[in-house]
């Protein structure tokens, strides 16, 4: 099973998290922490939409897998492509670790770096149109090289 999974549309949360649990509960990880992101109904949006640049997402994720491995942990992630309506999920991250403290720290670091670095672009869906969420987006470290 790939530790990074992309889906068209909203995520089948129960299926994904149950498979992760079944896959890794016998691997002697004492702590499995799952973070599920749910699209909120706010600012009159019908949902969110996502573009993903997979080559760099894959290398970013592989880098995190290496960091986790150094702490005897693994990271897991699922994300949506395209449209995701309110009150459904677009993002799940998880950490499996022998130690509770490592898992708690890693899920925080992993999710925060995901928000700042993963090459994913978010759009609000308003009256059927996509509007880029610039004000909620973060420039990647090193941005402005060509300005």
């Amino acid at each position, binding site marked *: 099973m790939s530790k990074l999974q992309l889906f068209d549309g909203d995520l089948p949360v129960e299926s994904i998290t149950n498979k992760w649990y079944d896959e890794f509960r016998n691997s002697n990880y004492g702590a499995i922490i799952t973070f599920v*992101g749910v699209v909120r109904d706010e600012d009159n949006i019908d949902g969110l939409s*996502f*573009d*993903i*640049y997979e*080559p*760099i997402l894959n*290398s970013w994720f592989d880098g995190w897998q290496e960091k986790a491995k150094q702490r005897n942990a693994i990271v897991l992630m699922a*994300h949506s492509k395209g449209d995701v309506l309110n009150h459904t999920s*677009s*993002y799940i991250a998880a950490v499996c670790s022998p130690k509770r403290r490592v898992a708690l720290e890693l899920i925080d670091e992993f*999710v925060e770096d*995901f*928000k*700042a*670095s*993963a*090459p*994913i*672009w*978010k*759009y609000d869906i308003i009256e059927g149109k996509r509007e*880029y*969420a*610039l004000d*909620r*987006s*973060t*420039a*990647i*470290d*090193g*941005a*402005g*090289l*060509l*300005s």
Partner: protein
Amino acid sequence: MVTVEFLGPIGKAPLSLDITNLNQLTPILKEDESLSSWLKNSAVAINDMLVKDANAELKDGDKISLLPPVCGG
């Protein structure tokens, strides 16, 4: 020749250019007014590796990508 692609919301068709250094790209892109606001906040990758050297050398067939601000999740 190298190709330049514009990811996510930039929404511009790729370019093919005959340049050998990344520093030759800035004046070309600045001629396009629709790109001016993106140049300030976009990161740059060469062959899918993010770069921080504005004078990186380019070779025939390289792919340059502009990555505007991100927001997953």
